[in-house]
């Protein structure tokens, strides 16, 4: 069965007053895919993400989420789209005045009429899923950064959204926690079939989870590579892409050549 496109970006031009950051970008995300957006600093990754989740309106072009254009739709459609997506923000964005349980139960209470007992059970399930059982009554300020990330994830997937967006999920996490988060992403993707769109530049995590990537570039303001990271690593025509995946400085080749010369 051919998978359908759940996110479609068509000819997107994005920018802040007068300054264009992304110029004529088009790509699709397939249903059930783990899709990673990457690129060097300042290339517009976060701007792209903000357009995908409807926080910013494109200067021109379309962003279509599950059949509806998020950039140009009425209030009710917009609400329906928001119901289908969950976002894990870089700093978790947990509400500081609420306990973890209250944070997670907020969307459940807002969008369903389930009895209190079931809501509590669901909250437990969600927190269990991210290994935070026993922390229901903790405030966000009382737990560590990695735990906040996981609690944020629990809140983002409280309603089992079709698409989960991640803004730099492993930023500020230690390698072990980071791998655990990757595994969590993989298992959620496998068990629930959730589509994941991830903005990151954490190399190990890219190779670990990505089905497909796009790489943005600051100079061309567009996509310079698209595909399987394992293939692109060695076979991309673009030197910057190869350097990115192999973790080499842009002038690595020049330096190594000059070193060779000196040795001779």
């Amino acid at each position, binding site marked *: 069965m051919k998978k359908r496109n759940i996110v479609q970006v068509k000819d997107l031009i994005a920018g802040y007053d007068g300054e264009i950051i992304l110029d004529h970008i088009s790509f699709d995300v397939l249903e059930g895919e783990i899709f990673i957006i990457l690129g060097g600093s300042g290339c517009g990754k976060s701007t792209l993400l903000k357009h995908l989740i409807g926080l910013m309106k494109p200067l021109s072009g379309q962003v279509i989420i599950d059949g509806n254009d998020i950039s140009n739709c009425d209030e009710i459609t917009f609400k329906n789209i928001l119901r289908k997506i969950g976002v894990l923000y870089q700093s978790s964005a947990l509400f500081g005045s609420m306990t973890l349980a209250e944070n997670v139960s907020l969307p459940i209470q807002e969008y*369903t*009429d389930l009895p209190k007992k079931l809501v509590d*059970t669901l909250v437990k*399930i*969600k927190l269990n899923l991210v290994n935070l059982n026993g922390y229901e009554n903790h405030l966000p300020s009382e737990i560590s950064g990695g735990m906040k990330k996981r609690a944020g994830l629990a809140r983002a997937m409280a309603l089992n959204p079709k698409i989960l967006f991640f803004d730099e999920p492993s930023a500020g996490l230690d390698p072990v926690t980071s791998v655990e988060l990757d595994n969590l992403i993989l298992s959620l993707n496998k068990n629930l079939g959730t589509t994941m769109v991830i903005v990151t530049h954490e190399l190990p995590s890219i190779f670990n989870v990505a089905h497909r990537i796009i790489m943005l570039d600051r100079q061309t303001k567009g996509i310079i590579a698209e595909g399987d990271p394992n293939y692109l690593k060695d076979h991309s025509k673009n030197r910057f892409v190869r350097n990115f995946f192999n973790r080499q400085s842009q002038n690595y080749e020049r330096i190594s050549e000059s070193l060779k010369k000196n040795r001779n």
Partner: protein
Amino acid sequence: MKSIEDIQSCQYEIAETEDGDITIYVQGRMDSSNASRIIEIFGSLIKDRQPLSMAVDLKKVTYIDDFGALVLVELKDMMTRANGLFDLQNAREEVLFMLDSETLADTTSFIKIRPPNMFIRFGDAIIQYAADVKYLISFVGSVCIAFVYSFLHPKSLRMEETFLYMQKTGVDALPVVAMISFLLGLIVAFMSSVQLQLFGANIYVASLVSLAMSRELGPIMTAIIVAGRSGSSFAAEIGTMKISEEVDALFTMGFDPTRYLVLPKILASVIVVPILTLFSDVFAIFGGLVVGVFMLDLTANAYISETIKTLTVFDVFWGVFKSAVFALLISWIGCLRGFQVKGGAASVGHATTSAVVSSIFLIIVSDAIFTVIIRYLR
């Protein structure tokens, strides 16, 4: 009996035998969008027909998540309570797994922490209060040290910042201070004229307005406006810096946060608020003048000369001195509340409120003390 019903993206058929057994064939999705409706409908089914047993057939379910699984658990609970049997048919492995998992087995909801009893809270409040007082005193100390240091090393003072705060606290507040003082002068003049007119003592409106405004109302009104405008903003600014670790950054870079953040604010306020108070006096007298000229048939000349005759230099300076003290208190408590911020956004809001409330309280208390002092001084 068979019927096909539709709940959003989920359809179901009910088959009922004569023995009182119900089988429900569910199709489509069981997710968060229809979970509560399914419970409602099937729950009322159980209540109405009181079946001996209920079976749910999941063969045609295309999607089921933890919301759907919970629905099944809830239905099972309902049947158990009605002394009936519950059975799942054609459930896929992952559904059974979801139902089997530990959290679902333990459906008791987690215990919310109840607030402790009155005595514990009272004790907590006392301890909190003591800590607050301790911090207050140490903050006074660090501000004093910072002042002495800056006095000895004038170059260490951030002049640009100080000028900026002088503008924010003083110049930007001038329109609102002028407006409020003008109206206040108008009101005082009007109210007093009603009484003084009875004695034909209209001219003393000028004395009353100028004396009341320059000694009491001018300084207090100005201080309250500054507390609302600048005291709150000091608290919010430092509080936000505190939670985004900017204060820590200053500390580790070797800056004294008190000297760096607090001193410019206190200095700017203490310089600028007395000047604002003078403006306030002038505008209030002008307000009184408007009432005097247009309603009481006084000439502007007479009004002004009466004002000059009443006011002594001491009156004006006393007001200005008081306002300097108020400014010190406002900026000091604003910064203090900012530094007390802990945790998140709610704490910043609390600090801001607390800054305004405490500074207004301190303004009034210190004014009362001043009034007593002046009574015995002269």
